[in-house]
């Protein structure tokens, strides 16, 4: 689904930048880039993205899962989770129930694009 609006929520600037470049090149519209929960929710309200690519940041102030859950509930946004956590934690956090796809870091361009395509299909 070319032109779909994608919200990038990544704490690491370089990763966010990489996704932006890659997705723009692939023809998607970037609905916004956020490093934290609050700006992410704000961007979602403004731009109604189709998909959010969210890193599973498990920190006190930046909780990717909570953000993802809120986005999915409040805005019906599809969730693609990127993570470096092992499967046990992914499962423990309930990610498989929440996400349309999971990209395990480090992922290739092809992998993330395939995941995005699968989520938007």
């Amino acid at each position, binding site marked *: 689904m070319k032109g779909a609006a994608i919200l990038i929520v990544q704490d690491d600037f370089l990763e966010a930048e990489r996704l932006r470049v890659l997705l723009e090149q692939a023809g998607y519209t970037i609905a916004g880039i956020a490093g934290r929960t609050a700006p992410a929710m704000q961007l979602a309200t403004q731009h109604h993205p189709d998909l959010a690519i969210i890193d599973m940041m498990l920190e006190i102030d930046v909780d990717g899962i909570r953000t993802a859950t809120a986005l999915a509930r409040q805005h019906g946004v599809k969730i693609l989770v990127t993570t470096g956590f092992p499967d046990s934690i992914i499962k423990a956090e309930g990610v498989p129930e929440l996400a349309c796809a999971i990209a395990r870091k*480090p992922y290739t361009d092809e992998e993330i694009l395939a995941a995005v395509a699968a989520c938007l299909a």
Partner: protein
Amino acid sequence: MRISVRLLILLVVAALPIFALQVHGLLEGREERKAKIAQRALDLARLAAAQQDQFIEGARHLLAAAAQFPEVQNLDAAGCDSRITDLLKHFPIITGMGAVAPDGVRFCTGGRGEAEASIADQAYFQEAVRRRSLAISGLILGGRSGVPRIDFAYPALGGAREVRAVVVLAYSLERLSESLSATPLPAGATISLVDGSGILLARAPPAPESIGQVVRESAFTRTMLDRRQGVLESVGIDGMERLHGFAPLLTSADLFAVVGLPWRAAFHEADRMFWRDVIVTAVSFVLAALVALLIGEHWISRPVATLEQVVDRMESGDLSARARLGRRGSPELHRLAASFNDMASSLQARQAALQASEARLRAVVDTAADGIITINRQGMIESVNPEVERLLGYGRDELIGQNVRMLMPSPDYERHDEYLARYLRTGEAQIIGIGREVTGRHKDGSRLPLFLSIGEFSLEGERFFTGIVRDITERKRFEERQRLLVAEIDHRAKNLLATIQAMALLTGSDTGSVRDYAETLIGRLQAMARAHDLLARDKWQGARLHDLIEGEFAAYVGADADALALSGDDLLLSPRAAQTLSLVFHELTTNAAKYGALSVPHGRVTIRSSIERAPTGDSLLLTWTESGGPEVAAPERSGFGTVVIQRSIGHDLDGSATIEFERDGLRCDIRVPLS
């Protein structure tokens, strides 16, 4: 039974035959004496009978002589009287003497006459006439004097053996008794003369009032008549018991001499000797008993009592007790006491060893870092060590005797009895001898992870189980931390790889040759590595701003101190800020080195840092100003470096960075909120 009592019984048993022999001897002696007395009574009776026979024979001779007198034969009364009176002068014992005619009429009285006028009707007279020989009357009471007497009648025969007259002699029984008294007799003895009817005719000592009486029971008389002579026991007229010997007179079948000897008196000697022997034996016995008791007491009872006391003390647990017999006791008892003492010493040593061993074991159990619980086959707690109390919060008294399942949460609480029963039934161990992690229940209801290993043992036929529990809360926590740490390391490594991957991809967008690309990429990676180093040095608490900037400069400018003028507030950056700013300063520095102030010898970078205080929150302000370099102009298209400088601070730190290309050189203003 006490030993002294046994000794006494032994003495009694030993003394019994002696007593029996003494009693037997006494009885035998009595019998012997009695037999002797009986024999003597018989002999005396015979002797008395013979004396009386002699007397009667004398009387017969006297009568026979008188019968030859012509005055008697011719019935000459006067002549007869004188002749008989002369004759009687020689025989004072004769009471009276006379003669009667064949018709029984008396014609001669012989002086001492007190006779009846006619004795024709007297049996003895008739017998003397008929048998023409001496006849003796029975007891005759009467006459003129009334004195009891016996009469003798003797016929005076003529030439043709015809009876011409009968001579009569009267014999006073009193005199007879006197004559009997002349017989020598032992003390208490009696002698008497009785006729066939049992009538007493004479007696010594005299008993005039009994003369003429039947003084003996008829049985005695019957026996006497039957046996003629013999010995009988009987009570005399004086009420005294005697042995009576009896013998008939040869001269008169109807008269018996009876001699009574008192036999009780004869036993006095035997009895006295018997009692003397008895007393001597009894005294000996008592003395022997006393000696035996003393010996028993000294040699046996007291040593045995001492041994008993020692055993009692040992029994009550005092193994220091020793038997000391001193000089008492037999060698056997001394040996026994020595054996006892040896045994006690050995026991004491063994008990001490046991106690020491037990104390050591107890110390091991009490100080064990693991909880040790012993239960029986019913699951009841038999013992616990202090660690169990500490671990599970219960006091020892609250646990002993309780079902061990109280220390378990559900579902083990409900199932433990069944586990135990199944193991006892089938022998299939689920945990015994294996050990596993279980959950324990603390008194306060909380649960705690335990490692439980169970051993089994049997004692006196009872099966017991020993559970050793170790609190593995810390281990669990450590394992969890380890797991998280590994997960975190994994996570960070993956994130870092993803970052490097992103950087590698992004670096490729604005570099020319591969060499150029590699240099640029390596430079950026090194900047990241330096930030890492700084953070690692402070254990990831943060990094100092000035250290970070100086480090970056040192890597690219070298020791040219003039190239950098760093001033202002220094502060500790958060790891995230340090990582972001490190890359930003790397881009600024490499940019300056390639195109700006640091690309010429006298170019210079001035960095000022300051903290801006504001009610909404403090901010770090950084100003990067280049001077002395070539003239710069804004590039036509923003490279990756510029993108990093301008946008990473906004993204990562909610701050901002602006770049201005002034005539003197590039200027960058950075604002980072310090929240």
